[in-house]
């Protein structure tokens, strides 16, 4: 299940655009590969993010995984409910399991990301 209305990174983060705001999460494919997510470490509101650089970490029972920013901008909201219920990332990666909202400095950066078809092809290539 790869929603058509999102943009994706090869490192499996997604971005959903609403004006100059982007909501960020990880894909259903990523959560099913990582499994058993027990901890999420996210930046504070006000943090400036740069596209394709690390902004946080998720931990499964087995390992830690870095998260990369799909776009540059200021963090304006953080999904605090993940601190107590990180399993939402497994259960609802595109809705309840979102990480951040970013006010984009350059919405044109979204053009650098994969669309649903491109992401699908990327997963298939990675899995082959």
């Amino acid at each position, binding site marked *: 299940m790869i929603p058509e209305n999102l943009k994706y990174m090869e490192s499996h983060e997604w971005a959903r655009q609403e004006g100059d705001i982007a909501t960020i999460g990880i894909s259903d494919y990523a959560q099913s590969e990582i499994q058993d997510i027990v901890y999420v470490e996210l930046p504070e509101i006000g943090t400036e993010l740069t596209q394709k650089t690390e902004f946080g970490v998720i*931990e499964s*029972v087995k390992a830690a995984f870095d998260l990369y920013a799909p776009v540059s901008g200021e963090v304006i909201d953080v999904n605090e409910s993940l601190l107590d219920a990180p399993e939402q990332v497994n259960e609802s990666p595109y809705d309840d399991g979102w990480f951040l909202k970013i006010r984009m400095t350059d919405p044109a950066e979204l053009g650098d990301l994969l669309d649903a078809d491109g992401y699908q092809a990327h997963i298939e290539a990675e899995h082959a």
Partner: protein
Amino acid sequence: MKQTPLYQAHKSLNAKFTEFGGWEMPLQYSSIVKEHLAVRTTVGLFDLSHMGELEVCGPGANALVQKLSTNAVGRLTDGRVLYTLFCNEAGGIVDDLLVYRYADNHYMLVVNAANIEKDRTWVESHNDTGAEIRDMSEDTALIALQGPKSIDLLKPLVPKQAISEIRYFRFILGEIAGIPITISRTGYTGEAGFELYVSAENGERLWNVLYPEVIAADGQPVGLGARDTLRLEAGLRLYGMDMDDNTDPFEAGLGKFVKSKNRQFIGKRALSRKKKEDIARQLVGFQMLDRAVARSGYTVYQAGEHIGNVTSGAPSPTLKCSIGFASITSEAMLNDKIDIEIRGQLHPAKIVKVPFIISGQ
């Protein structure tokens, strides 16, 4: 990478694989948490065929095994199992293992997968009693059945013998579906259970007999991911992580497995000396006080001072917080408050007694 006789069975269950001690082993079949909780509540089925089996036979067998073991192997009788350490002359731990006594002239040593060659060489190089040493690792499959339902599951499969009467750390020779098996009441999970030794050629047959019974009992096949979290909760150390050739039994918190009275063994002199000295560092259990995950290698602090390192760490599916072992200075043990550095940030933790959870054996 080496594969066990059950590799195809794992493949057909769509297991995710991992490298462990030179072996390609199932990491998980479904989810580590699900598999872990199955062992705590119902039953789990494990392939442990990567473990090594060294047989020591002949009239010199008893003396050789005694000489190598820190624990009192001489007290074993037929059909009993003993946990012991092999130490080097300096008192460092060569390996931790189980010793099975089939007879006075027939022992089986069950050793860690990554140490098979090292241990075989160690045993051979100290063989001055003329014992016969056979490495049976390639010819042996090991399947474990662990969890509260394991006894009831196995009972009807071994109708001729009273499975429920095998006490902890004892074994019998039996058969399941006509396959000869060493049925051992042992495990590495903190739950009741069995470890079943079978010839490699019969390994897949035995797995296929047990698998549907495990599923019918609401159990799961269990990979090495959950094996690690289960042994951690049970407070069991892992060689290569929590101890190595440079760790002595006291530093590893395994001093009770060193029995020096009226017996000789390799490492005794060094260990007797050490016993009198203060032990500089010690392995302790810790529990995180927030949700952060402490993993092997992370640095441990107390009141801003570096006191040691995490040797094993993982989220505990039962306790829903992170737990682990850390090797810290003995002075630091006087205060149970510690901090663990995770990605540049200090996170609070406390020293706790192990096992972290008490279950049935």
